[in-house]
């Protein structure tokens, strides 16, 4: 129970003035521009867009600057901003098979159509601090280029599906759930789960995904494919009545391949866990794919024994904006609640004596 408390306005004003000053830091150091954040803190921007569930690099950069680099606070700001905008409608599902690839790897096939394309990855770096970056004016080396054909690269899952060894996804054209319009309800269908995971906290999903690998849930995943790059956004304005391209966005997709022992109606085959995230969120896409597969336990008739397989546990706790709201509300005045608890404890102690 919260009691309206008056007073504190001057203290709050002073706190916010100090916050603005602390955000700016040492005046002798040039102020950071949102363009610098957008261009040079790209993965932080991507994460804020993913967890803020709103693709807009400039807004995400602004949110990061305002939040002093706090990703969850920035995602919160972006979520709050989006509520001020009207929705024009929904786009056609992104065609990730037609992606303009910047990175594409598979851990299941060494040589495959399209090849292993590393892209701008941290993988194979030595994770040694590069003190050259601490100096300004580092020269930019030319980026190597090689002749390329720009034909679309087939998905790895399709190679297995053609052999009948990969479970086909149901291509239902039903209207998907939308958590921004309808609250989560259980049992949650796959569309609600994927939307929830796509905007879920990377750290939470990473921990859950990791738990499935360590034995909490019977997962034996392989990275069938990770692909990153640009996809076209197609939208059909009602006044036109036909689809137009309204932009190109960067996304990361992960297809986790998992063994499935089969059931009375289905033969043994591979099944998919799926991850799709705004920007270059490879770790998040992988974690999402692991958790998506774990949450399919019920539909695949597998035993539900682990936290990552428990849809209510996962989906109710994955959203960092909700989680931070409820955890941080503990800071609000609970003076009256606490008084009653205090009375209670005192009475119990009196009675014990």
């Amino acid at each position: 129970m919260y009691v309206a408390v008056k007073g504190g306005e001057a203290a709050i004003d002073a706190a916010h003035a100090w916050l603005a000053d602390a955000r700016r830091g040492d005046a002798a150091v040039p102020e950071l521009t949102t363009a610098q954040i957008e261009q040079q803190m790209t993965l932080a921007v991507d994460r804020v867009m993913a967890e803020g569930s709103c693709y807009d690099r400039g807004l995400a950069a602004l949110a990061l600057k305002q939040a002093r680099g706090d990703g969850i606070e920035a995602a919160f700001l972006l979520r709050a901003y989006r509520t001020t905008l009207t929705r024009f409608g929904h786009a056609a599902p992104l065609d990730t098979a037609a992606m303009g690839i910047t990175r594409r790897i598979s851990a299941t096939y060494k040589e495959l159509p399209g090849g292993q394309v590393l892209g701008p990855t941290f993988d194979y770096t030595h994770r040694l601090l590069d003190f050259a970056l601490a100096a300004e004016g580092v020269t930019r080396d030319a980026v190597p280029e090689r002749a390329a054909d720009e034909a679309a690269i087939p998905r790895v899952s399709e190679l297995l599906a053609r052999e009948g060894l990969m479970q086909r996804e149901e291509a239902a054209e039903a209207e998907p759930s939308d958590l921004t319009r309808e609250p989560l309800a259980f049992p949650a269908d796959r569309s609600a789960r994927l939307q929830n995971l796509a905007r879920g906290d990377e750290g939470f999903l990473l921990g859950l995904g990791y738990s499935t690998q360590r034995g909490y849930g019977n997962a034996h995943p392989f990275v069938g494919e990770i692909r990153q790059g640009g996809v076209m956004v197609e939208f059909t304005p009602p006044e036109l009545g036909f689809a137009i391209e309204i932009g190109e966005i960067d996304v990361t997709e992960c297809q986790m391949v998992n063994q499935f022992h089969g059931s009375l109606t289905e033969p043994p085959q591979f099944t998919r866990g799926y991850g799709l995230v705004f920007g270059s969120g490879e770790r998040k896409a992988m974690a999402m794919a692991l958790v998506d597969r774990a949450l399919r336990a019920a539909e695949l008739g597998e035993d539900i024994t682990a936290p990552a397989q428990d849809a209510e546990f996962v989906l109710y706790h994955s959203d960092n904006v909700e989680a931070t709201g409820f955890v941080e509300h503990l800071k609000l005045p609970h003076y009256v609640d606490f008084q009653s608890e205090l009375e209670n404890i005192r009475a119990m102690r009196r009675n014990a004596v």
Partner: protein
Amino acid sequence: MGLLARAKGDAIAALVAGIDLPTHTRIRGPETGLVMLRGRAGGDGAAFNLGEMTTTRCTIRTSAGQVGHAYVAGRDGRQAELAALLDALLQDADWHDAMMAAVIEPLNAAERARHALRARRAAATRVDFLAMATMR
């Protein structure tokens, strides 16, 4: 329209800078809102809502009475208005060829160059496995 949506507003403005475009009136916008983006489970299954994207739309009418619409990703009102104007002019036989040559073809060439550069850089990071006798 895709090219106008993917180009930067500044780039479109620079291409039309020297052209005496007909006057137009705004019918709607430019206004910024959201479009919900979707993915498909497994990449090819049932659709799900991935997250929203800021989008700016504009509808204009030229002095000749031609109506143009535009929806462009982002929050650039000027880009949306120019795209709507160009949409109208491209439907106008008197303007179509000139606008294709002055705006659409340069934007197309710039985008193709951007995509080709991305593809060439990606190709340079494609792994060439050396032939090994046993590699299973």
